[in-house]
């Protein structure tokens, strides 16, 4: 068990390190000279070449790539994410302001998509190859195929202009505000298809198991069979798709926060990339990767508890 956990942890930790190194390398070669950017391109301050060189030396920008990466890791461990070129303030502060908003949105979307996704998946599997099944699967396919930046504006058109049901949802007014409904609904469309599909497949797999037949044969009502005997094996694939769900949530956050003007993590990442603000880019990529990797590690942690056969097999 311990060996299994250590191997898994090593796997995701090295993965995170690889992503950080690749991002740093890309920024190192791709973002151009940060000192030049800071003074000449952004603020139009006229600085002579010797001063530029001294600043470069002072911040260790003349060190080789590996040395700089090592320094970056050291600062990262101490919670220092650097200073934004655009905003001239610590990136850590910006992240602390933005991340809670996105975490709330993401948590709400996860809860809602589980609450709707699992019953829908069970229903589709119980009505396998009948009209209900086709409808649910069709809706899942459509919500999977149509990107967030299409559903968002179209829903806005429908609800605000055509049906005139709500005011324009714009900005962040707290999780319980009515203006948060539409962003959460659009965000839910990312993980919902995954959860429905996983649940449906898992239920279909167990419907022909002998213990289900036994449960039915001894006269248990249908709802009891589902609640007691089917949902337990369904738990495993749904929990193990956490990693995938997190990826769709982060991807979705970028678009949802852009469309609805929410100052969250996705918006921060997008702004950083559009303005080539490389400390912000580094920070958002690292934190995004960290969230997903921790999610994946948690899945690995939960997996043997849900399905004890796993550690023996690997």
């Amino acid at each position: 068990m311990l060996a299994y956990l250590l191997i898994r942890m090593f796997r995701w930790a090295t993965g995170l390190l690889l992503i950080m190194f690749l991002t740093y390398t890309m920024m190192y070669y791709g973002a151009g000279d940060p000192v030049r950017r800071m003074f000449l391109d952004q603020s139009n301050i006229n600085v002579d070449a010797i001063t530029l060189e001294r600043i470069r030396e002072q911040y260790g920008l003349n060190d080789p790539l590996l040395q700089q990466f090592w320094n970056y890791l050291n600062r990262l461990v101490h919670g220092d994410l650097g200073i934004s070129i655009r905003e001239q303030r610590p990136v850590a502060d910006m992240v602390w302001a933005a991340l809670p908003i996105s975490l709330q949105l993401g948590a709400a979307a996860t809860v809602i998509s589980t609450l709707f996704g699992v019953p829908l998946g069970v229903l589709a599997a119980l009505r396998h190859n009948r009209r209900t099944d086709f409808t649910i699967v069709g809706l899942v396919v459509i919500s999977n195929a149509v990107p967030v930046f299409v559903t968002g504006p179209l829903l806005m058109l429908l609800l605000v202009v055509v049906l005139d049901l709500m005011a324009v949802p714009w900005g962040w007014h707290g999780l319980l505000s009515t203006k948060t409904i539409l962003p959460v609904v659009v965000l839910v469309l990312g993980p919902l298809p995954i959860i429905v599909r996983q649940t449906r497949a898992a239920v279909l797999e167990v419907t022909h198991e002998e213990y289900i037949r036994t449960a039915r044969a001894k006269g248990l009502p249908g709802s009891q069979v589902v609640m007691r005997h089917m949902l337990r094996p369904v738990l495993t694939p749904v929990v193990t798709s956490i990693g995938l769900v997190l990826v769709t949530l982060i991807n979705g956050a970028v678009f949802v926060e852009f469309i609805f003007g929410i100052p969250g993590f996705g918006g921060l990442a997008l702004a950083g990339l559009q303005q080539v603000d490389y400390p912000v880019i580094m920070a958002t990529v690292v934190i995004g990767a960290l969230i997903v990797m921790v999610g994946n590690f948690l899945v690995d942690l939960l997996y043997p508890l849900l399905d004890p056969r796993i550690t023996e097999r690997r």
Partner: protein
Amino acid sequence: MAAAEFPLEVQKLQSDTRPKSRSLLRDAMRRLVKNRLSLAGLMVVCLFLFAAVFGPLLAPHDFLAQEIRSALQPPSSEYWLGTDALGRDIFSRLLYGARTAAVVAFTTTLVSLLIGITVGLVSGYLGPRIDASLMWLTDVTMSMPGILLAMLVNTSLKYPFTSWFDDMYEETRNPFFLNTWWLDFVLVFGALALISWPVYARLIRGQVFSIGESMYVEAARASGAGTRRIMVYHLIPNATGPVIVAVTQGMGAAILLESSLSFLGIGIQPPNASWGSMLSDSLALWRSAPHLLAAPSITIAVISIAFIYLGDGLNDALNPRQ
């Protein structure tokens, strides 16, 4: 002669159940056409490819022509889908956008398929140690939020490329280095291929293992066939079906990814037309001119759904045993 022994219905039945040709393609085509949703998907995809190839000939207006006096017009007989804020014809821009989407879809899928095939084959054939490390790389790439990675690659490659082009122009004075509109495409290809290859790598590796353990390959190996013979005569023909399905779905996904990048203002830049940037351009005007928003978003949705249903139909048609 034998026909006379059976009543007419049975004869008919016999001729129906015995098709003249049993090639994979014809069988697959028959099964595909039977499924109505997939047939609709196929038709939409064909229409899309037709628009991509012949779009400039079909377009009623130049997609760049700005007629400021007729800006923001609703759909009319002259401008079939209306005009945008600069007075450009939306229908013509959609047609040119189809060309962008098709080019990106084909190239990205091809490049990521090549990477995926290489990684998958190496993983499947060169032993468990290399397999484990390559699958680690695949897992890590897959677990990275795709849009962040694509944006990162696109932005960080852009600066060195453009500055290198500037330098080259300074040196050679060759006008080739001034015109960099196609650079956006190359960057988008690179960024998208870099995030799409893991799907193909996993698929190919899975095929190598499942086909490699099958009875017929074992039989071939027992009768002395080498790795190359098994690859050419057994692996490639049997893996073709799943790969075609994955490619179809991958092309749909590539179109979506391209329009997402352009939507965020990072992919294909103006003056090139892209559905994603058309959408983000009209986002500011969504209240006063909703038709601007509706045209590209409905197009993206329809094409994407069409590719998914076509992929599903192909899956049933090409892999009937699943």
